[in-house]
């Protein structure tokens, strides 16, 4: 009796579940979202023609920490700031797109850069945006009391760069020495309004950040903590009135329920994990856009562990030979659609990137030979893994199994994310040899010097090669484009030959965008911030 009763209940519950799940496949086509605020009722227009009106909801993972571009460092703040504050200019594949700026010209000696602003620019509150604002922003970052984390970028060879106003639309930047990566620095310099922040003792803690006044395509409307940030159209945007009425950034912390909200129309744009792509794609309601994030995923070799196992470059090359890049990409990212094979430490969006460098791939015999020649046997390596990080877990298991085939014993050490982060970033940690990691360094190759220069603070491989140090110094101070390119090409080859890291893949970000929206190409999908220019998006 007792058994029968529970059996019945379990069965009843199960059938409820099954019917709930199977129901999903049939009813995907019908869509009438309950909570969507999108204005689907605007005047009809020809399919694909940009028209005005409507609102877009972008799902983000957390609250923005600060809506002020000179402090924003987290993904969400940067994403919102991109729509709220116009940059001076942006760089895509080495080409500049000008926003607030009209031109940027270096002088003949490369020590002065002249920045011309567009004329008639205004802030969201109607005040004019002039050279004064650019100089103010520049000096606020340089002011140590203001605590901006970009400060060191404005200091070259121990001396600060100077920003001087020439007239209302012209600023001159005077460099103490030649520094070709200065343009990359200016990309990050997004002006903040002088008339708002002028008398603030501490801009970072200023309550004025709670109602930001920007210059971008959309102006601030409302922020409900833990819920959403809404921006509305800025009619005086210099590049023309944006199509959408508003953009809302909805804070959705849980990935699973956010994916359901996406299907339900409560969110229109959201990042996807590779394993969720097919579910979302099958609804037929979304454009799935994988795009390069300028990120390299790689296997790190700690050359200075207490066993010294990876100090010899032959051993690192042998490990590289024992692995197969394509298999790793399949294992970790599920498909080559979401990751391109990587050979160079510079990502494809970076200047002077070349994937035409020495690489080691999938040759077990060669690996064994190298190990033998190096006189190494019974090698034991420790691999640190951040628990719950799916990419790291998958990669570590694959690598463990492949290295076993060449007689290397890998011990996996799982630890929680913060313990992992601490160990990985501590360049004096000696108790591990391997880790699966990634970085995004931006487009100027000088940024990579902190990873590979002797003693640099992010040199996690503990790599040291005087030739590499010298080449990085040469690249940083060389104004001649061709010579600079040569230095960085040579660097890519040397680091590949030394097998400092095993580059695996240039990974892609996957974004799902509701098919109701168009103008994706014009808006330009961009790493971290999703859309470079959201004013171009429109409701179909």
């Amino acid at each position, binding site marked *: 009796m007792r058994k029968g*009763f529970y059996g019945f209940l379990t069965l009843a519950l199960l059938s409820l579940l099954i019917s709930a799940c199977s129901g999903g496949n049939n009813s995907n086509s019908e869509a009438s979202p309950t*909570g969507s605020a999108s204005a689907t009722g605007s005047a009809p227009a020809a399919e694909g023609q940009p028209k005005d009106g409507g609102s877009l909801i972008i799902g983000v993972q957390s609250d923005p920490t600060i809506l002020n571009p000179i402090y924003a460092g987290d993904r969400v703040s940067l994403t919102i700031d991109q729509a709220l504050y116009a940059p001076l200019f942006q760089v895509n594949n080495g080409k500049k797109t000008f926003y607030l700026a009209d031109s940027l010209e270096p002088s003949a000696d490369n020590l002065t850069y002249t920045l011309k602003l567009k004329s008639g620019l205004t802030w969201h509150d109607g005040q004019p945006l002039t050279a004064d604002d650019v100089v103010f922003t520049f000096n606020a970052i340089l002011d140590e009391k203001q605590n901006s984390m970009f400060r060191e970028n404005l200091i070259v060879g121990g001396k600060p760069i100077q920003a001087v106003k020439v007239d209302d639309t012209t600023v001159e930047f005077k460099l103490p020495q030649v520094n070709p990566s200065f343009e990359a620095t200016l990309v990050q310099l997004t002006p903040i309004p002088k008339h708002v922040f002028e008398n603030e003792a501490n801009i970072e803690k200023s309550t004025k950040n709670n109602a930001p006044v920007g210059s971008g395509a959309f102006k601030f409307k409302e922020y409900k903590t833990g819920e959403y940030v809404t921006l509305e159209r800025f009619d005086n945007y210099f590049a023309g009135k944006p199509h959408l009425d508003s953009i809302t950034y909805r804070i959705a912390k849980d990935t699973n329920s956010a994916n359901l909200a996406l299907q339900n129309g409560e969110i229109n744009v959201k990042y996807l994990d590779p394993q969720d792509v097919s579910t979302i794609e099958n609804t037929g309601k979304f454009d799935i856009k994988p795009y390069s994030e300028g990120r390299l995923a790689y296997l790190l070799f700690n050359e200075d562990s207490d066993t010294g196992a990876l100090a010899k470059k032959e051993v690192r090359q042998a490990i590289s030979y024992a692995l197969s890049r394509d298999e790793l990409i399949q294992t970790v990212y599920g498909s080559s659609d979401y990751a391109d094979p990587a050979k160079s430490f510079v990502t494809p969006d970076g200047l002077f990137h070349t994937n035409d460098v020495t690489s080691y791939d999938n040759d077990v015999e060669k690996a064994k030979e190298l190990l033998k020649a190096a006189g190494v046997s019974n090698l034991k390596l420790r691999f640190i893994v951040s628990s719950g990080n799916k990419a790291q877990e998958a990669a570590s298991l694959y690598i463990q199994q492949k290295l076993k085939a060449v007689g290397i014993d890998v011990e996996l050490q799982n630890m929680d994310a913060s313990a992992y982060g601490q160990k990985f970033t501590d360049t004096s940690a000696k108790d591990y040899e391997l880790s699966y990691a990634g970085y995004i360094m931006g487009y100027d190759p000088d940024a990579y010097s902190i990873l590979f220069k002797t003693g640099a603070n992010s040199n996690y491989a503990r790599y040291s090669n005087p030739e590499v140090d010298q080449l990085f110094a040469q690249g940083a101070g060389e104004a001649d484009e061709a010579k600079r390119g040569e230095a960085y090409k040579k660097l890519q080859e040397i680091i590949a030959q030394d097998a400092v890291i095993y580059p695996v893949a240039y990974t892609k970000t996957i974004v799902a965008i509701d098919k109701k929206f168009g103008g994706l190409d014009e808006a330009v999908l961009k790493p971290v911030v999703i859309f470079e220019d959201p004013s171009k998006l429109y409701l179909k």
Partner: protein
Amino acid sequence: MRQLIARRLLQTIPLLFFVSIVCFALIKMAPGDPVLSFVTPNMHAEDIERIRHNLGLDKPAYVQYFLWLKELVQGNLGYSLVNHQPVLDQILDRLPATAGLMGSAIALAVLLAIPLGLVAGANRSRWPDKLINFISYIGISVPLFWLAILLIYLFAIELHWLPIMGMRTIGVNSALDVLKHGILPCAVLAFSFLSVYVRYIRSSTIGQLKEDYVQIQYAFGSSKRLVLFRHVLKHVLLPIITLLGISMAELVTGAIVTETVFSWPGIGSLGMTAVRGMDYPLIMGITLFSAVLLIVGNLLADILYGFADPRINKAR
């Protein structure tokens, strides 16, 4: 009575002091570095050090604690390390969302748990008891996030009755809208509370039914229903007072999992963010806030107990 309250409130101070030390020590012993949450890949080492210094994180841990304590004594809970907003403001900002959600969930759970527990206890080992037991086992053992996703699937994706995300439709400010958004998270939480409460009430009912006064009522010919809902009910309410006292703290700490799944803008999800960013002023603030409420809740429960059951006061 007054003496009792005064004594209990005085005991609170060393207790809170102790809680704050333990909490601070745990945060400082945990691996991780709050500054890391600011670090972007191409930041310079000098900038990182400067930020660490400006936040006072380069001082020894005990100095940091005393600086924090000094501010606290002056009534300042400090500023978040991450977004530099005052901690107290952030907690108060999130309080209505959490208190509203938890309050309604707890109220709903109690209202349902009382009749269900009485019925289960009175029908011990017969089918109503088994059914109620079964449901409460499910409530205790099923993970909340799973139940939440299941309900979202049914009521939002399949039936389109209810929204999934947040507390409001964007740009809409009406009580009805908030109510609509609250139904699912409230149902999930109420179900989990209910499952626990029912078991207390059930066992308390079973105990009461053996008491002499129940036998006498039966002997006088009272109906079973009358005995249960008039006489046994009063006694069964006693453990509920204790449960509610403990729940006072939950009223503010909120339900981390449920709030996260539904993106409910409450203190639970705030706490989650604080822990991830190692934002110790915020973690300390939330911990102290809930410790105070737990203590006050227990005190209130004790006082109410005295009114509900005069025997307890006599024993003191």
